[in-house]
């Protein structure tokens, strides 16, 4: 028998601290596999955010830096400009990228910084125990919107990919999901493409990844996958928002 699925060398062999069924683990693996496939593990510097994944520098086998809350694109910009030969990615959640770090991500994209951002959208603040995020859906109950998000009080959710795609410096923006086998395969392709865009020096690339938070959504892991499929995909449709015809 031949081994058809083995653990990637792009991740260190440590148990992850994430809750059972949290899809951060899948996304970590996809990024790690992409680095191995493109043979860039030795030359990549990742930037960890603040949020549940604040210490993912413990898991990736590449070099990592941890940034202040929301500032990963700014730190990534600095690294890339000092070491243009290195590959730089930021790993950010919706609290990090779409709330406190909105200015950094918008301007990094507008400047066309040659970095790749992996934006994990789970529609809630996970690390701080389930408060409303900018990406929380209308009607979604969180600890700070206990009766469901009301647009008259809390405003509307932000479609980050669509927003970033309006900027000229962003050459590749895609939204993917990790809620099924097929979606995971597509997400792997998108992550590889984001790295290749950076390798080709074309500009800023971002992949938004729809993710689950079973603990703070208050749903079991399998039910959370179904909730994502039924609710999040309606508000956040999958697809390429910029760079559809990009050949890299």
């Amino acid at each position, binding site marked *: *028998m031949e081994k058809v699925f083995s653990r990637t060398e792009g991740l260190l062999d440590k148990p992850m601290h994430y809750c059972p069924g949290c899809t951060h683990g899948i996304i970590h693996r996809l990024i790690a596999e992409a680095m191995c496939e493109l043979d860039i593990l030795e030359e990549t510097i990742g930037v960890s955010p603040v949020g549940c994944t604040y210490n993912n520098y413990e898991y990736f086998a590449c070099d990592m830096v941890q940034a202040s809350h929301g500032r990963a694109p700014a730190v990534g910009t600095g690294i890339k400009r000092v070491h243009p030969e290195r590959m730089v990615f930021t790993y950010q959640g919706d609290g990090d990228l779409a709330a406190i770090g909105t200015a950094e991500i918008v301007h990094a994209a507008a400047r066309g910084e040659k970095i790749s951002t992996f934006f994990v959208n789970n529609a809630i603040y996970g690390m701080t125990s389930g408060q409303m995020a900018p990406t929380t859906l209308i009607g979604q109950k969180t600890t700070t919107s206990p009766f469901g998000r009301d647009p008259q009080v809390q405003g509307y959710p932000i479609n980050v990919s669509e927003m970033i795609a309006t900027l000229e410096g962003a050459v590749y923006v895609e939204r993917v999901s990790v809620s099924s086998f097929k979606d995971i395969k597509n997400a792997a392709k998108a992550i590889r493409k984001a790295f290749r865009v950076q390798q080709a020096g074309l500009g800023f690339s971002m992949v938004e990844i729809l993710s689950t938070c079973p603990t703070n959504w208050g749903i079991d892991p399998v039910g959370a996958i179904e909730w994502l499929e039924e609710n999040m995909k309606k508000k956040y449709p999958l697809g390429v928002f910029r760079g559809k015809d990009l050949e890299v």
Partner: protein
Amino acid sequence: MAKVEFREERCKGCGLCVAVCPKKIISLKTTVLNSKGYHPAGVEEMDKCIGCTMCATICPDNVIEVWK
């Protein structure tokens, strides 16, 4: 002939592999606890495994390896 191997100590019993398996041969071992206190996933009828890698692909904790 195919087989899957579970690293039970790393399993958090989330059940994503149980739900995704097309042959429905994965289950949580309710009589077993790992040191973290989770019921780990496992396969009893390994001869029915087709080595599709769907369980390993959706596993968030790198528990599963697959041979075919």
